[in-house]
């Protein structure tokens, strides 16, 4: 067994194991941590596939931003009570049956007879002077520049939508009142009081 194969099986094992632990853990915070482990394993597998840029992006964006967002929401909402009484017995047999059938069909379709090494040969590994980021950037800024701009607009819309959804009502909002700030006078802010000094009264 080659070293690459050993790496593939180790990463695959952790990917599958942490995904299973994620869906069967009752605590939402633990589920997030298991999902982080499975994202790390996915990134390792992507590096085996020579997609370094996307692997690093997966770790930075998903583990660094999205999963932390999940953890923030879990911490803010204090949902431990609702997850404790989450019962998942009812649909487990049906779900397992559906998953087993899908996996069996996929193995039949995607087996080594159709996508094995003798059908799709493994490509030659790139040399040390190959840069994945350069290749992706050449594609992204020439052929796919219009979808790239659209993705930026989509992210902007997502930001605005998220903020608008959460800040809908006026009660909790702290906002600036420009007319009050402009019309303020010195007497509104400073109050001069004369305090009788206690030492003088003693004399």
């Amino acid at each position, binding site marked *: 067994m080659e070293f690459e194969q050993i790496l593939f099986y180790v990463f695959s094992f952790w990917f599958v194991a942490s995904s299973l632990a994620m*869906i069967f853990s009752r605590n939402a915070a633990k589920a997030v941590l298991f999902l982080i482990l499975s994202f790390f394993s996915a990134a390792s597998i992507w590096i085996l*596939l020579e997609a370094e840029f996307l692997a690093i992006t997966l770790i930075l964006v998903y583990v660094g931003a999205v999963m932390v967002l999940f953890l923030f929401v879990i911490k803010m909402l204090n949902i431990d009570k*609702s*997850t404790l009484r*989450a019962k998942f017995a009812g649909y487990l047999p049906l779900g397992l049956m559906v998953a087993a059938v899908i996996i069996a069909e996929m193995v039949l379709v995607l087996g080594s007879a159709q996508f094995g090494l003798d059908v799709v040969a*493994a490509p030659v590994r790139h040399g040390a002077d190959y840069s994945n980021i350069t290749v992706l950037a050449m594609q992204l800024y020439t052929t796919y520049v219009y979808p790239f701009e659209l993705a930026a607009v989509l992210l902007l819309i997502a930001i605005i939508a*998220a903020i608008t959804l959460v800040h809908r009502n006026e009660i909790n909002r702290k906002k600036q009142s420009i007319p009050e700030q402009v019309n303020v006078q010195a007497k509104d802010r400073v109050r001069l009081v004369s305090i009788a000094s206690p030492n003088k009264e003693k004399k």
Partner: protein
Amino acid sequence: MVSLSDYLILSAIIFCIGLVGIFVNRTNIITLLMCVELILVAVNTNFIAFSHFLGNEAGQIFVFFILTVAAAEVAIGLAILTLLFRNKGSINVDVTNSLKG
């Protein structure tokens, strides 16, 4: 050598785990969102495996856009979740039956 079918079967297994997660955790919306993330990662692994074995970078570009859309989806999904918790006091799926669908 690791063949293309190994990667494809691995991502099929991960996809099915995400599917079982949606079946199993029907009560908790946060876990449902995380299962959707798992399914998306499985699909992305498919794209990258094909891109590597066929020598075409378009698959990796597609994964880039899928990551963008998934990040937007998570942000809006969690915002809706916060609203739901604020209005109903729970994030149980069973309380979201106002539409009587």
